[in-house]
């Protein structure tokens, strides 16, 4: 479709830029606020700080333990992403390239998992992790995080592997590769675009995850992740808003950077997953 008329076009751009500014204003406000002093933050309506200082970052990083939370978040995210990519690639390969009895049932379950709310399973999940003795380790959080709905990823891998030509596999078999080696050395490397999509999407989801880390760190505050650690700025009588803005910036920047660098894969991946 084509939008004609120059005036309408300019008008549309004007509106899009105006709304776009409002759209990202909370982030601009937060980053600017992270350089303000606490009084400046509360009293002044001007989003631009009177003077720029890094005190809030020191306070967030050291006093509020964001250095520790940062490490926790990185470990949890990297491990979860690795597990999810491997599980989904294996499942997708089996579903996409092999005809076996029960395939439809498994596909049905994969789609059905999407509709299981976390609020439904969080209590037994907490109990399970507790019984396994894992509430005091990041491993428990990683396990619980890896259990989410991976419907989109499995379907992406399934349809991608299904479209690869049969000849590739046959050639690999001729060269003496078994099923497993064909997968790891021939087929999996071909699925790089899907792997990239899964890595980015799961990275962003896990990095931002809140319910599971909140629940599993109730008795172990030092295992908190960045998203959960924001509570540290809320005191009994007052909230350290400027420190919180610095903490929020520390938590959000890695995700924003990953997104902006990889957005082409990310956006195409989301779109591709829906088209299936």
């Amino acid at each position: 479709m084509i939008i004609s008329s120059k005036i309408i076009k300019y008008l549309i751009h004007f509106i899009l830029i105006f709304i776009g500014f409002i759209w990202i204003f909370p982030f601009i406000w937060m980053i600017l606020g992270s350089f303000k002093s606490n009084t400046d933050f509360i009293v002044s309506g001007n989003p631009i700080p009177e003077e720029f200082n890094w005190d809030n970052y020191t306070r967030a990083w050291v006093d509020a333990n964001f250095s520790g939370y940062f490490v926790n978040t990185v470990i949890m995210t990297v491990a979860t992403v690795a597990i999810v990519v491997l599980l989904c690639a294996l499942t997708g390969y089996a579903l996409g390239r092999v005809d076996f009895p029960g395939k439809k049932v498994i596909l049905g379950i994969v789609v059905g998992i999407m509709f299981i709310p976390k609020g439904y399973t969080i209590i037994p999940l907490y109990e399970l992790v507790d019984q396994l003795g894992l509430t005091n380790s990041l491993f428990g959080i990683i396990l619980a995080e890896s259990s989410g709905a991976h419907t989109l990823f499995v379907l992406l891998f399934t349809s991608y592997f299904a479209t690869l030509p049969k000849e590739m596999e046959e050639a690999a078999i001729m060269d003496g590769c078994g099923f497993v080696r064909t997968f790891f050395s021939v087929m999996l490397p071909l699925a790089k675009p899907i792997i990239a999509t899964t890595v980015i999407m799961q990275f962003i989801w896990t990095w931002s995850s809140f319910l599971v880390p909140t629940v599993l760190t109730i008795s172990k505050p030092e295992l908190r992740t960045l998203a959960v650690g924001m509570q540290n700025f809320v005191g009994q009588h007052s909230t350290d808003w400027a420190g919180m803005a610095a903490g929020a910036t520390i938590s959000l920047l890695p995700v924003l950077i990953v997104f902006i660098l990889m957005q082409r894969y990310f956006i195409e991946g989301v779109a591709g997953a829906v088209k299936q």
Partner: protein
Amino acid sequence: MADKKGNLSKTNRNRQLWAYIFILPQAIVFLVLSLYPIIMSYVYSFYSWDGASPLTNFIGFENYVELFQTPRFWGALVTTIIYMAGTTALGVGASLILAIILNANNMKGKAFYRTIYFIPVVATTAIIGVIMKNIFGIDGSVNQMLQTIGLADQPISWLNSSSLAMLLLILVGTWKNLGINMIYWLSGLQSIPTDLYESAQLDGAGFWKTLFHITLPLLKPILIVILLLSVVSGMNAFDLVKTFTNGNPYHTTETLDLYVFNYAFGGGLTGSTTRMGYASAAGVMLGMFTLLISGIFGLISMYTQRKLKKEAN
């Protein structure tokens, strides 16, 4: 390879065996971390249980009876449905308009706009809740701005009024997820063959005619997907509600997810006793409502697709 039939079926059986082995890890994760917890939610919901002592006090349906007699539970259900319906209606509609604009062939700066409008999607919801809590606080930027430009004489207590708090929750929730719906719509728009538009142009159809006769009808299948995803995410509002309004004022913005959390783990945060059995019953109800509502959408989608197929024939 195919000259010996026996050999082929042997390779086939071998492949099938490997397929099962490949699915096994995912299946174990599903059984242990999804299916088992679901079953246990039902089991816990029949006990009076604080989560710490042994699971011995079986009370049958008492948790459910209490749940049904508790206005706060019904309030949480209504809040969840209002939030789900509000974010779905606003989000699905607004993102469609945005996607149509950003899909126009001669539109400049598409990539730039897509990035801008997508940023809230990747940002951590829990942190957005905290930021919004400050922006809409009594001394927050919104009040200061309204007073500076003279639109308000006194600061508005956004988060102390249930209707305003609920409205803000829906608006912020919509803002957060609009970008993802926009991408879904764009993928649908891009799957429409361009020659349809070309022939419409040759026939002299204008923008609106093309929109209502070609674009929108062809978007129906993707509409169902977007609606379903939006409904499921709306039914599971936790991160934003917990950090933005925390259910206040007086539980009027408490969603079912938050209700479950407050009874199951809220005690752990405040030091009072937890009620895991009762919370499990609420969790089971949440699961059932989500299934019921997505089931209704599923049926509607099946019906629409059948109708579409009939029209195509």
